[in-house]
Structure formats: structure tokens, C-alpha cells
């Protein structure tokens, strides 16, 4: 069953280093295409590192592998993903007159996806 979470896209050290190596390197894609979760949330949903989850809202839908966030970095109910193509797919076009779309701290739904997920569920991308 889907649950509501708040997602925070942001920068990480690895996002920065792999960005320089190139946006088409596997390192960058992996870093910006992996969702970090609170370990208790993962346990509750029966998720393990590497399991795939679907994350969506009115603006888009992505399927990404998840992993437990380091230590107590993420409170329950909060998701983190490195900035990039995947996080931007969940961002709406409306800026409420500010020029800035809601880019951090917005609501998404999340549900685990079985291992047998069809290829079409994979994150669309080049």
C-alpha cells in the first residue's frame, strides 16, 4: 500500500564528484538514481538495500532502488535523493510567482515494487 512521504532532493559529495566525471557515468547515475530512506521506514515496509520502490506525485513517477540512510541522518517519513534528472521528474512546473518550483520538501507517495518489475517501470531516461 502506498504511503505519503516528504522528499528532500539535495547535494552530496558523491553527486559533486561524479558530476565532474560526467552525467553519463554509472557513478553519477547511481548516485542521483538511488533513494535514501529512514531504516525504520524500510523495515516497516519490508524493504532492504537495493529493493526498488515507486515514488510518485501529480508531476511524475519514478522507480528507483532504495537504501538506508547513514546513521540517524533521516527522520522517519523523510526521503532523500541526490539532485539530478530523477529528482527533477517529481518537480512541478508551477513556481507560485517566485521563479522557483517547489524543489525540496514536497509530498510524494511511495510503494515497494516487486523484483519482477517490468522494464517499463524503470526510470525513463536517455
Amino acid at each position, binding site marked *: 500500500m502506498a504511503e505519503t512521504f*516528504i522528499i*528532500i532532493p*539535495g*547535494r*552530496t*559529495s558523491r553527486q*559533486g*564528484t*561524479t*558530476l*565532474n*566525471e*560526467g*552525467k*553519463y557515468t554509472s557513478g553519477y547515475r547511481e548516485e542521483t538514481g538511488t533513494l535514501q530512506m529512514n531504516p525504520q521506514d524500510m523495515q516497516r515496509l519490508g524493504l532492504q538495500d537495493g529493493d526498488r520502490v515507486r515514488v510518485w506525485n501529480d*508531476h*511524475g513517477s519514478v522507480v528507483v532502488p532504495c537504501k538506508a540512510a547513514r*546513521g*540517524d*541522518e*533521516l*527522520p522517519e517519513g*523523510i526521503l*532523500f535523493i541526490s*539532485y*539530478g*534528472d530523477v529528482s*527533477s*521528474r517529481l*518537480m*512541478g*512546473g*508551477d*513556481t*507560485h*510567482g*517566485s*521563479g*522557483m*518550483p*517547489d*524543489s*525540496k*520538501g*514536497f509530498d510524494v507517495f511511495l510503494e515497494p515494487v516487486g523484483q519482477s518489475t517490468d522494464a517499463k517501470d524503470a526510470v525513463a531516461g*536517455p
Partner: protein
Amino acid sequence: MATPAVPSGDSSAGTPTETAERPDVKVVSNATCTFCGCVCDDMELTVEGNRIVKARNACVLGKAWFFNHHIEDRPEATIEGRPASYEEAIERAAEILCNAVYPVTYGLSDTTCEAQRVALAITDWIGGTVDTTTSVCHGPSGIAFQEVGEVTCSLGEIKNRADFLVFWGGNPAESHPRHFTRYSLMPKGEFVPNGRKDRTAVLIDVRKTKSAKAVDIFLQVKPRSDFELAWAMRALVRGIEPDPSVERKTGVSLEVLRDVVERMKQARFGVILFGMGLTMTRGKHLNSEAVLALARDLNRHTRWTAKPMRGHGNVTGADNVVSWTTGYPFGVNLGRGYPRFNPGEFTTADLLARGEADAALIIASDPMSNFSQPAREHLKRIPVIVLDPKETETSRIATVAFTTATYGINTGGTVYRMDDVPIPLRPAFDSPYRSDYEILKAIEWRVREKQLAASAG
């Protein structure tokens, strides 16, 4: 102004021992890293041919920046994905810009101020809109500056004076790795001779990031409640008791908050360094405004300042150049022959998502990866001119794409550090590709030729 060549003076002369043994090796001292807004200008680069093999003083991000900007084998220009001559590409770019009714110039935060000026000039000639990546970074803070002003200072003042630091909505340990060590938390300064020991540091964030380990007090705020927290702190600074409901809303107890605010009032020189945790979250400019006003209020008791932590190497330069030229920092339309500023109307995220712009000139930015889906869809539909040293999603869809030399590594010029201090660049080696400045200058020239011919004919 021509693009400065690799300097041959003292700054780039190899050390005697190294160059004597290896004539192909040179050392560039006091080079500048332009990867993040810290713009560290104490780099010592060892250059072998057209590769930087050592970058002394660079952080992990800086090293990745210097080691990965070697010369790639790509065409100098492409038109609709096919290799084209430089002249053809300039011609096509000028044609697109002259034919557009509502063009937008966007990006600009990863190029020199010299190139930014030319991009603005082109936009002015064609009556377009100029916007920079500021609009999706600290644009809301730019709006807040206009509302409440900015009590500001330089990073040098922070280093030499600040005995109280509040990092808010940012993770400098990962995004600006040398900020702590070079400018804010660790260095010994004139009035803080013992460095870290003389400073108190607070981090306010939703996530307990790596930066939390570096500070004395971590306030874990609930998501989307920075605004309430800042206003509760403003109240306390003014001696007003906040409503207890603020505890539930922010997740921070009033007792803790009272203690922190009391300490802030007793600081000799305090600074709030705020990140995109404030500007990108609901509330946006109101969040920045609250924090700027908090710094202002604290000046009733002692000296306090507030500075946004800027991301890209020359995003601060973009704000400066656009401001000194048009009077506004970003999102400026020049269509009526005079500048008009209106975030939400003349900002690129909106212009594209609403399907309004009919051409785009994009300099050193990748909106095809970072913008919302409707904005990307529109960008795919219109003619786009891209200047970028690397291949990106945006260069892939571009009608005209130029491969450029990398600023700071291959080209000289000026960039602004996040505290609005201009810093010169000392390039490490020549690139076979042209600089943004040179390409933009050629486009400007061709645009003018076409406009003059049209008005004469």
C-alpha cells in the same frame, strides 16, 4: 577584450626542479577553483600537457573538477546534432535569435563575468529575457533582499571576527567542503585567535547531515517549518514569548530555542549562513526574508550578519553583472527597451513550463536535466543554442551546440565569490575550444550585422 592566454608570468612558471626534470610539467600557483561558490583561490595545480595531475589545496569536489576537465574529442560545434563549422554555427545561432519573438537567455552561473556581460548585451539587442540559475537557487533570497535588505559581510570578516555561526538549511560539509576549514568554522583569525575553540556553531536542518558532526548545537527542525522557527527566534530576540504551538510545529523545544537565542545575543560577531533548504522549500522568499530579518533584529544586541551559501562558481557574478546592468538580479525582460523584473513571469522555469519562450540561449547550464517535465517538454520544441564544455541532456537536444573551453581551467577572466568579492582566474592550460566570451562576442557581432542590414534594407 580578447580572452587572456595562459599566463606566462610568475604565477604559472614551473618550480625550477620540476620543470628542469620535466619540461612538459608546469605548476600554476594561486589558481582558482570555480566548482563551488567558495571560489578558493589558493590552488596549486601541476599540469602535464593538457591534464591537471595534482591540485594541491583542493577539496574532494575541487579535485574532481580539475581532474575531469581534460580535453574531450568532440566537434567544436554541431547543428541539429551534426558536426558543423564554427562560422556556420554562429550564423545559425544569430539567425535563431534574430527571428525569435520571445527569446530567453539562461544559465550563466558557470562562466566568467566577461562572458555574462556579452550574453546580456545580446539579450538587450534582441529584446529578450535574461535569467540565470539564481532563479532556481537563491532567487528567493534575491527577492528577500529587496524586501528587508541584507546585513552582510565578507568571508574574510567571518574568518577574522565571527565567534558565532549558524548554518541553516545547508550541508556545507558536502556542498562547500572548504567553507568550514578556510572561511568559517576552523580558521584562526585576528579576533578569534584559537580558531574553532573561539567559535560556537549551530546547525539548523531537517536532516542530521555530515555537517552536524562539525557543530556544537544541532537543531533538527521539522520539514517546512523553518519560517515558523525563524519567526519564533525573532520574537525571542525582541523579548516576546512565542506561542507554545511553535514547539509542535517546528519540533524544537522553546527551552532549547531560548538558550540558543540568548547565546546568539551574547556573541561578539555572529553570522547566519543559509542554504537552499530555505529557498527551495515552501515559503521560499519568505523563509529567506525571515532569516535576514532575524539577523537584522539581532543587531539590537550585537553585530550579526546573514549570507546565502551560493552554489555555482560564478552564480554570484551573474547576480552582480545582471544587477549592475539592469538594476535587477535575475528574471529580467528587456523586450520594451527598458528592464522589467518579475519573478514568476520572466523566470525561465515559468517561461518554459508555460510554453512561452520561442528560443533559448543557454550558457553553461543543463535545464533538460534539472527543470520540471513541462519545462523540458517545451525546451525540446523550440530552437535552443547551447554553450557547454561537456555534453549534457540540453546540448543533446540543442539546435546549435558549441563545445567551449572551461572557465578557470582554460580561460581567464573574473568570477565573484559567494560574498561578492571578485576573484581573477589563472588558467592552467590552453583548450582547442573557444571560450564562452569569444563565442558570445561572435554571436553578438553577427546579430548586430543582421539587425543593421535589416534596418538599412
